[in-house]
């Protein structure tokens, strides 16, 4: 790194320029997000009258009060956590299993199989809406959180397989062989040797999967029916009535609902880059 920064002499016009360009872009990127922030501190009436983008003369915190005091919102959060955390964990776990086999125990035709699994990432989920509903209905799981968890687990398998396979491929085969010579079976190799070394990949996948599952609203919409089973995104969507919208409350809820994904990113950020480097970028 030293060369990149030091070879430029004492004055760094490039650095200044870089900083300025980045700042301008950052403002551009922040402006839209600012919209949510503004909408959350204004009344619905103010927004309806077209005053969204003006600097608020006074902060209206009623929206937040309404959102945070609403027990239904608490339930939404709990439900979302209840599907997001296990869904993230389970999709990574299952993707890890396939990834491990594809990386360390390849077999004839495993590449084709891998292709089929990864192809699972590419179709729009609406395609399987109806058959899945029937399946879960048959299992008596409609209006529980199970189907959401299960579908996200299943839908997460392709991306998790892809990344875990690539990551596992960077773990030296000699480690697996050494463990096997020590008497470990594949399960022990996976859990005691390979996985502990794959924390960066886990960080990447945790971030991505958490974000995707948290933000999704198609599956909860279809698979849950009662309000006590709904997730936060449905809560936001349902703030829109047939003939009305509560903009301010929606803004406040949106803001609150986006915090967990942001926190997850910030938490995993350090490993994220490293994991991407080893898992995704190496192809």
């Amino acid at each position, binding site marked *: 790194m030293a060369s990149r920064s030091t070879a430029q002499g004492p004055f760094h016009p490039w650095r200044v320029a870089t900083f300025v360009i980045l700042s301008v872009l950052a403002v551009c990127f922040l402006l839209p997000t600012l919209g949510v922030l503004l909408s959350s501190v204004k009344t619905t009436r103010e927004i309806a009258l077209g005053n969204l983008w003006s600097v608020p003369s006074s902060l209206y915190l009623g929206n937040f009060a309404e959102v945070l005091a609403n027990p239904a919102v608490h339930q939404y959060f709990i439900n979302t956590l209840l599907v997001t955390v296990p869904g993230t964990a389970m999709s990574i776990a299952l993707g890890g299993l396939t990834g491990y086999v594809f990386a360390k125990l390849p077999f004839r035709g495993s590449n084709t199989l891998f292709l089929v699994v990864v192809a699972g990432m590419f179709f729009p989920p609406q395609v399987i809406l109806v058959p899945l509903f029937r399946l879960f209905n048959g299992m008596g799981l409609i209006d529980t959180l199970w189907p959401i968890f299960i579908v996200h687990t299943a839908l997460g398998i392709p991306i998790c397989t892809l990344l875990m396979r690539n990551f596992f491929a960077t773990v030296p085969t000699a480690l697996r062989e050494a463990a096997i010579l020590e008497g470990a079976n594949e399960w022990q190799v996976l859990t005691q040797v390979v996985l502990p070394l794959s924390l960066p990949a886990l960080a990447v996948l945790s971030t991505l999967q958490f974000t995707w599952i948290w933000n999704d609203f198609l599956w909860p919409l279809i698979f849950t029916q009662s309000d006590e089973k709904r997730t936060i995104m449905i809560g936001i969507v349902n703030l829109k*009535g047939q003939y009305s919208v509560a903009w301010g409350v929606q803004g406040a809820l949106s803001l609150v609902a986006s915090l967990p994904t942001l926190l997850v990113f910030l938490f995993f950020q350090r490993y994220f880059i490293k994991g991407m480097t080893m898992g995704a970028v190496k192809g």
Partner: protein
Amino acid sequence: GGGEVTISHYFTGELGLKAFAEQVAKFEEATGIKMKDSPVGHEDFKTDILVRAAGHSLPDVFSYWAGARVAFIVKANSLAPLDDLWAKNNLDGVVSKTIAKSATIYDGKRFLIPFNYHYAGIFFNRKVLADAGVTEMPAKWEDFIALCKKLKEKGVTPIALGSKNRWPAQFWFDYLLLRTAGPEYRAKLMAGEASYDDAEVINAMKLWRDLLDVGFFVQNANADDWTDAADKVARGDAAMTLMGTWITGYWDGVGLKAGEDYDFFPFPSVKDGVPNAAVGPVDGLVMSANAKNPEGAQKFLSFMMTNADVQANWAKAQGALSANVNVDPKTYNVVMQKAAKTVSEAPTFAFNYDLATPPPVAEVGLSMFSRFIDDPSKLETVLKAVAPEAKKAFAE
């Protein structure tokens, strides 16, 4: 049965959900039957109910839009007939005649309990019209044009329209067609027995185009939601908007006073000898053919329909009119009372376009409207293209 009754509906949003839940609670208290409630935003409701139908798992009771949509699912054998319920509760004496006639009977049987209905009229900002010196509301097309001209001269855009979601534009087509070609022709068109390149359609559309051409409509109607249009009228940027009575609920919500700040007048008559039909949607409740708890469901339906208190509260929250004739008109605000009167006096009640014609056709038509609004000069080409598409859609 004493078990749960499942219900799904599209009464979401802050007010709608709360008000509906209150009424459901009344029912539960009165009967001891538990309702299992599932509110879904109304765009998503369409997907949700289809998936559930496809999955053979419709809720016992669900809200639905009277008209072609109910006809469609009746044809698919998804609904249970409610004639017994109707007779047992003597609903003939409870449900408004106009509504009962137009909204409840499909294939000769009753399938829908009309819950409430809306009426589409021209809602206006009183102050703006007063400033323009208008005292008398136009009853004839010429008067309407004159009014628009006057407003325009005053620098106020006469008509607001927010057709981003397409459907708000339909009322213009509905009324213009009804007022020029008459309800019978329209019914034929809606049923696929007439063609979109008929002279009747072209004439109606031309009237509309004339309004657009002289700039009576706001710019960028396709960019606005209907609420944006309502806001424009409320602010006084525009004078009037052709919208359903739910606009009163919206305006009340942002603090406008009925009768003082806003009012409405019915769509003017255009051609002599054509009856002045009223247009609007009817929200109803239906019972699924495979309801797990039909008894409870029927109890629920009759309670919701016959209980005047429930009807009154619910209609108020939705900015709707109750289909129950026993609801005391005084529970409505002045504007709504006027609307109720207009409907009861109307010779026919017609559903708005997307409820009157089958969904695949409605898709074609609604797209046509927004295309037309985007560029009115293309009217002929648009209609030419739509006619065969609509035919194809009817075929499906």
